[in-house]
């Protein structure tokens, strides 16, 4: 049966009140990665053209990666992080701890400088 507007609006609110699923946490990792990558690139003045040069990819391949659904593999994340000088790691936490639902993501400059950024702050 087709739902009316009020039911759909209620469903929308209920959807946001749901506990995060496995898919939420997976997308969360990807979004956090992009957020910290783009923030870092902006801070360090690394352009997308420069990223293309460092990864040995064409500019159109980088543009496509940024503009299409960014369903990145871990291998690709590590490759990009290496190219801009970030260290990327995924560290599992016990689900019994009081961790947040965000992905566990730590990035650090390869030179050990002050660019440590963490999402999960237990």
């Amino acid at each position: 049966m087709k739902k009316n507007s009020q039911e759909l609006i209620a469903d929308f609110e209920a959807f946001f009140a749901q506990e995060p699923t496995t898919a939420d946490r997976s997308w969360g990792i990807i979004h956090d990665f992009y957020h910290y990558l783009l923030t870092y690139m902006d801070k360090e003045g690394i352009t997308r053209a420069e990223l293309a040069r460092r990864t040995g990819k064409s500019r159109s391949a980088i543009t496509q990666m940024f503009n299409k659904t960014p369903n990145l593999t871990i291998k690709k994340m590590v490759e990009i992080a290496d190219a801009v000088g970030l260290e990327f790691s995924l560290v599992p936490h016990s689900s019994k701890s009081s961790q947040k639902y965000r992905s566990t993501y730590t990035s650090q400059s390869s030179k050990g400088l002050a660019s440590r950024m963490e999402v999960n702050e237990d």
Partner: protein
Amino acid sequence: MGKLEFRSLKIMASYGKTINKIYYVVENGRSTVEAFFKLSEEERINIRQIIVRMATEEHFISPMVKYTLNKYAFGEIRPRGQRFFFFRKVGNNYVFFGHCEKKRKSLPDQVYKQLEKRMKIYEKEFTRINRGF
């Protein structure tokens, strides 16, 4: 313009402290968020994660989010090439007010002009309602 409401979207505390509040427009009992259910479950979850981060990060950066479009004073979430969710930042609030789905990846300028017209009405009303908060 009919009866306008700005409903606040609750973000679960487990995602972190809300910095920017999320609102969506309900006009005459209808809302653009109804279009949300035309998307696949995976796309909905993706958008949920984007919106949650827009709420809990001071300035969330994503290739899927444009905060201001060329020539226009509103932004869009583009979860897929041909789907658009439009919002306007008013203070520390994001107000989602429109949605569009086209087969093409870009929209005619006329669509944006109409959206901006609507957006200005919503912004004025939102500011009026929230004055004093």
